[in-house]
């Protein structure tokens, strides 16, 4: 199962900048639509397709909201 740290690594890699729990598309320059798609693709791969079933995920553009929804769906360790 994924961890919060792993999510931070995935997002950091996609936006090409180190992110933290306060990071979002509003304060990270590289968090554009291409980066957003990379995040979705990476999560899809690591959750074996489970994350793609979360409808709201595509619209979430902050580290906190992504982690919260993955926690709610039991896709990352609490």
């Amino acid at each position: 199962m994924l961890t919060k740290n792993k999510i931070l690594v995935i997002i950091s890699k996609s936006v090409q900048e180190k992110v933290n729990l306060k990071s979002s598309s509003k304060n990270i320059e590289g968090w554009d639509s291409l980066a957003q798609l990379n995040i979705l693709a990476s999560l899809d791969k690591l959750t074996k397709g489970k994350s793609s079933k979360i409808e709201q995920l595509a619209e979430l553009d902050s580290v906190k909201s992504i982690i919260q929804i993955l926690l709610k769906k039991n896709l990352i360790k609490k």
Partner: protein
Amino acid sequence: MNLNLDKKFNKFSKDFDFKGIFKPTLTSKLLINSSQDFIVKSKKILDLGCGGGIITACLFTANKKASYYLSDISKIAIIKAKKNLKTFNGDFSFRSGDCFNPWEGETFDLIINDVSGISSRVAKISPWFKDVPIDKSAEGISLLKKVVKNSKKFMHKKSIILLPLISLSNIDKAKKIVKSNLKILKQFTFDWPLPKIMIKNEKLLNDLKKNNLISYKKKYGIIICSTTIIIAKKC
């Protein structure tokens, strides 16, 4: 070669004035990134469909010695590009005009074509073409065709041209046009999500897709389009 032009693009996107002209999109960013291998060795660079001049601005940070030629059909875009590049102190020539018309008799080492081409029916529902000219064909390839067919006159044996093909146009036909006029050296395809604002027109998009006028896929609960950057030279 990594010249870190992404960060420059993000900075200029914020700092430059694009009021009333085409705002830089992912296509411009992809063109900049894909041109990195050719910037340093190019002496004459044409920024076709320059808009506010963001492509030249990014390329200039990597090669200050080159001469840059910027043109756009929009006179306002040229005014804005001059204003945005005023402090750069580069060798810039600005001209307003359609396609290659302003550059009769010139040849260039590197041509970056940012003349956008998507289906006119998609352009009308998109957030990208406010107050700017659009491709008038439902296939979205008439501007590309014009650029590709005329490009040879403005290229020498070693010239490189970068062309973006967007899946919101008839990309198969677009590729055929490029292949029959130029020699493709490389091509890169990048996926990107369709803006949320356009998803409410899914029925129209679906109809266009069924008629092979555009292409996209649905994944992760969103519509994913793609842009292919073609790097080509004269046959």
